[in-house]
């Protein structure tokens, strides 16, 4: 089966400055791929090149095995980072319009719009004009407009941005529902929790370069492992010292350790048993994707955070 998207050594300069440098990856059918990175990492530019909206300066992009274009029309559902709707259209008109542009006939398009609005709790807003809807509702309508034609491949650029936690949860549900139909999804985000919960695979971008590409577990393995330990007996600091890259001592004597590469949390447990040092607290901390992200991109994160919100490259 042809991969929905494949990028080979793709680069793009804007005003002489590299926005994307030598990026390669392939999105396989049925995958949910999280496309992560700080602002200015090159996520939006990469997705735009993937869709053929802008041409790469070098490298090749294949969408369904061909250069982006007519072949992919109707097979892709694209939700751009910058969102909006025709203000005077109603919700059902907005969804039906996009569905019709994607090849669905008029009557089925409106039927589909009604069904989707009912299914995702917007049944009462069917005939409401977009200008009269809340931001969250409008964003949901636009997402439904992007996916109404049930495309094979969904490209969602920052779909969670601007949504409140309730709507973020609803959107996660929509993504899961799409994935359950064996559709392929790539979505960009800098909210790690969503990626952690939803993705099979993660691609990390920083300063226009791909810095990681692998499963969520592999990404988590990159994160520093930490463990919190405490003991009412003396000698805890000496006991953990061979395994710790860094130690933070709390006022109550509890130690927060960042483990050295190769060291395991249970090594501390084994040594405490061997040395007869009773632990009053032993708490391995589950690594987060955010920590993995910070480890992988390092300074770029801080640079990215300084980029004004909404400016994407």
């Amino acid at each position, binding site marked *: 089966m042809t991969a929905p998207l494949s990028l080979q050594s793709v680069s793009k300069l804007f*005003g002489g400055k590299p926005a994307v440098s030598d990026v390669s990856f392939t999105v396989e059918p049925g995958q949910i791929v999280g496309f992560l990175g700080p602002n200015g990492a090159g996520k939006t530019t990469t997705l*735009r090149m993937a*869709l053929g*909206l802008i041409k790469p300066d070098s490298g090749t992009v294949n969408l369904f095995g061909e250069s982006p274009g*007519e072949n992919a029309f109707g097979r*892709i*559902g694209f939700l751009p980072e910058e969102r*909006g709707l025709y203000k005077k259209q109603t919700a059902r008109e907005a969804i039906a319009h996009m569905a019709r542009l994607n090849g669905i006939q008029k009557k089925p398009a409106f039927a589909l719009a009604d069904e989707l609005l009912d299914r995702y709790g917007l049944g009462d807003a069917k005939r409401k004009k977009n200008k009269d809807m809340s931001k969250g509702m409008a964003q949901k309508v636009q997402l439904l407009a992007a996916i109404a034609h049930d495309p094979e491949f969904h490209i969602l650029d920052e779909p969670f941005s601007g949504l409140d936690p309730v709507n973020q949860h609803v959107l996660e549900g929509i993504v899961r529902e799409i994935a359950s139909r064996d559709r392929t999804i790539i979505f960009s985000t800098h909210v790690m929790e969503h990626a952690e919960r939803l993705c099979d695979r993660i691609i990390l971008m920083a300063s226009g370069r791909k810095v990681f590409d692998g499963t969520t577990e592999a990404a988590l393995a990159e994160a520093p492992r930490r463990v919190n330990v405490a003991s009412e007996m003396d000698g805890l600091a000496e006991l953990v010292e061979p395994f710790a890259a860094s130690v933070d001592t709390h006022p109550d004597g509890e130690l927060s350790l960042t483990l050295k590469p190769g060291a395991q949390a249970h090594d501390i447990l084994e040594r405490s048993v061997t040395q007869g040092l009773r632990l009053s607290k032993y708490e391995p901390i589950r690594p987060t994707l955010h920590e993995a992200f910070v480890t992988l991109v390092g300074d770029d994160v801080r640079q990215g955070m300084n980029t004004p919100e909404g400016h994407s490259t």
Partner: protein
Amino acid sequence: MSLLPKINLRRTFLIARRDYLGYVKTWGFWISFLLPFIFGAFGFIMATADIDLSPTQYVTVLDETGQHQDGLARMYEEMLEDSARSAMSAKAFFIQDKMKRAEFQRVLRADGTIAAQSYIKENIPDVSPNYEPPVAEFKFIDAPANSLKDLLPYLKGQSLINVDGEEAALGGAIIFKPGRDPSKPDAQYWTTNINKVDAANLADDYLQHLARESYLNPKGLTGSELDRLEALAPETTLYNPLKTVADDQGVNSSDTIPFVVATVLAFMLWLTVFSGAYMLLTSMLEEKLNKLLEMMLATTRFSEIILGKLLGVAALTLSMMAPYIIVGIVGVVGYVAFGSDQAIVKGLISAFDAKMIVFLIIYLILGYVLYGAFFIALGSLSSSMQDAQTLTTPILFILMACAAVIPLGLSAPDSPLLRIATFIPFSAPFASIVRLPSDPPIWELLLSTAFLTVLCIGTIAMAGRIFRFGVLSGAGAEIVIAWFKRVVLRRKA
């Protein structure tokens, strides 16, 4: 490889349809669409209700000399009769027979408007004898008081005069007082309506007439005799050597109507192009601000969006112009079928010949596409209405300059400026249309069309690139300024 971009007609239609309906569903569209009908209905109501928008002013004369009141009233009657003759003389324009035209003018001058109407009824059945007589700006009435002091309450509106059993306000009073010379009385005009001074102007004319008579009379001459002799002077007859002898080489309305029609059509063309292009700009800006283009581009080609917008707004512009177009067509066809003045009928038929219709359609399409593509490009570079206004100002100046060329079609159709404008693509649609009645060489029209077509293709290609860049960059006017500084002025950012 095809030079033309691939187009999916269904998607193009859907984009055009949305743009069209997006505007048609607004109040603004229906107000614009119904405006001519609303004005027409208003005009009809005003006409049938016989509401006088400019009521006749009543003026009285206090002549302390006892010598001028009758002369002033007589002069006013003569002026009204002259105005009526002037209005009536326009009928000569529609009389094709040279001999009858000359006789009509002689009768009018010698015997007045009623005799001239009778002459038309009896001798020229094709021409309507009816005419719109000039409206009297004011009427003289007898003075309601014998002194200025007693007149003041009437002039101030505190007292009313009685005219034919109805009360009315006194609009003004002309007062003649003895001067040092009987032919030079002191004249005053009293009124509270200081902007309406027709009566004062009449008094001035009367005083000039007195001065003229006082100069001529001692020499045994009279002003009226001089006027009569002047009126009997022969008039120049207009001939066009390009007309065939059998056709009567004299020039009449059938020869001049095509020029008038071409000028009107060029103005309509300009208005259509201007309003269409401007709507494209706002449509493009709306699209950009709505931020839907990027989503659409995942499923639609750039070329389909541009073409869809051009078609949608073209349909919209034509819909908005439809009332005027329909009224125009019905008016022309109605007059050709039922009109009484055959000269006008002949002029209209010759104005709307095949060449005019073909070139009007060609220039309408090319002119709209040229300016439309520019406005699409500039709209896609704008991020606000202020941006759009800044960026479109140069193009608006060009459009205004083109509008200034159009009247030359009437006043100087052989003007070198008009000929040059034919070859400048921006002004070609308008200049060519107004030149058509002068029968310009066909190669000039074809060359002008070719230039315009080439620029249209170039503009669409450029607009496509700017559109692609503008849509995805979130650019505003500042990006154009930055480009200008970087590329043209070679300044570092």
